[in-house]
């Protein structure tokens, strides 16, 4: 049997000696290109393409100024997502792990971000501010770390207690924090913050890491993602804005985020480190796809399940090659 197999194998790899048919490869290519061009043209003419305008800090502050304000306070208090993120932005968190592999942490800090300074203090300092904001800024800058921490954390807690409703917050000793948050909200509302964060002190700027992180700390981007059905937990990875098809080829990657234990942040170790485990799993499965010709069982599926009888039926008929017997 194995002699037969190796004879078949060597015939399969040898140049074909049997019947041939005419085949105009150049003509085929030209026709295919024409068809695909026409299809693309038709789809574009009729459907257009998606382009939801990008969100801005101005839009955030204008539509939900309390949320912007609260987020600014969280940046100062160090309680925002970015402030506690860990690598590659800062050392405030340990990051995710794959069992004993702390790859996120080991990769180190490559894009240093200090949420309080980068998102609040520096932008405020780069613009002419009203007297009270300027005074608050200088109080903050000259204050001891413990004081800064106490003011901001207390104020953040007070805001949380009233669910972020700025006007309802209890009075207390919050130092310059309310004034700073108010100043930044005013800057954002005027649109000045968009420009400042973009330039980040330089003329040319091609890296938007800081803006994206600041955005992500608040509810504005998240709400927009939910409204557009783009949340990862609801297959958003595959979706597109509007009614356009999305990255449907990410279906498998997206699938894992929908099922346990990956979809439960509370479950350890996998759910709590879902991003890392899913990426590793997909890497492994991708390797599997590439290596199909060498994986016993998988590589014989197409031989066992005879779709090939349909594909080559003309040939099987002419040559009188019968079906395999079921084992």
């Amino acid at each position: 049997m194995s002699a037969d197999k190796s004879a078949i194998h060597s015939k399969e790899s040898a140049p074909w000696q049997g019947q041939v048919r005419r085949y105009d490869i150049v003509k085929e290519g030209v026709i295919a290109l024409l068809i695909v061009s026409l299809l693309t043209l038709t789809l574009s003419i009729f459907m257009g393409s998606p382009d939801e305008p990008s969100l801005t800090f101005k839009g955030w502050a204008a539509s939900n100024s309390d949320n912007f304000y609260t987020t600014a306070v969280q940046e100062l208090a160090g309680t925002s997502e970015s402030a506690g993120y860990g690598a590659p932005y800062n050392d405030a968190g340990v990051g995710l792990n794959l069992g004993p592999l702390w790859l996120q942490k080991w990769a180190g800090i490559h894009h240093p971000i200090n949420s309080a300074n980068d998102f609040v203090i520096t932008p405020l300092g780069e613009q002419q501010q009203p007297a009270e904001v300027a005074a608050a800024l200088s109080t903050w800058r000259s204050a001891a770390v413990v004081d800064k921490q106490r003011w901001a954390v207390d104020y953040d807690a007070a805001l949380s207690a009233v669910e972020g409703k700025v006007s309802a917050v209890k009075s207390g000793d919050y130092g310059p924090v309310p004034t700073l948050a108010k100043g930044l909200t005013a800057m954002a509302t005027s649109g000045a913050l968009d420009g400042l964060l973009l330039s980040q002190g330089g003329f040319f700027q091609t890296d938007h890491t800081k803006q994206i992180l600041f955005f992500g700390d608040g509810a504005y981007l998240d709400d927009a993602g939910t409204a557009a059905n783009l949340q990862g937990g609801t297959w958003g990875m595959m979706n597109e804005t509007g009614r356009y098809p999305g990255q449907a080829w990410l279906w498998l990657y997206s699938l894992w985020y929908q099922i346990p234990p990956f979809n439960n942040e509370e479950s350890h170790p996998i759910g709590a480190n879902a991003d890392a485990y899913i990426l590793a799993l997909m890497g492994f499965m991708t390797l599997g796809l590439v290596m199909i010709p060498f994986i016993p069982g998988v590589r014989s599926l197409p031989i066992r399940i005879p779709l090939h009888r349909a594909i080559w039926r003309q040939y099987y008929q002419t040559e009188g090659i019968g079906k395999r017997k079921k084992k």
Partner: protein
Amino acid sequence: MVAPFLYIEASFKATSLNLVKSESALLIRGAKVTGFFSEFMNLNAVYLKANSWLSISVSNLVVIISMLVIFFIAISIPFPKDHHESSKNGRGQK
């Protein structure tokens, strides 16, 4: 006679993205959407949901079902026979 393609004013859905109208007006800055049906294509997508976790947009479903249908059509419908009968082992490459 219709134009080769229509220009439809962007129908950006400010409400769905929780944006203020002024921002969308500011950001679009005169940008227009091309395509006869682009107004329809930019409406909120329709999602099909089965049980608690399965959810797919109609567009993605159409794409995936079309792929399956096209695949089965491709392996089932007859391919035109070669009318220029060729001889056994008449390897035209030579």
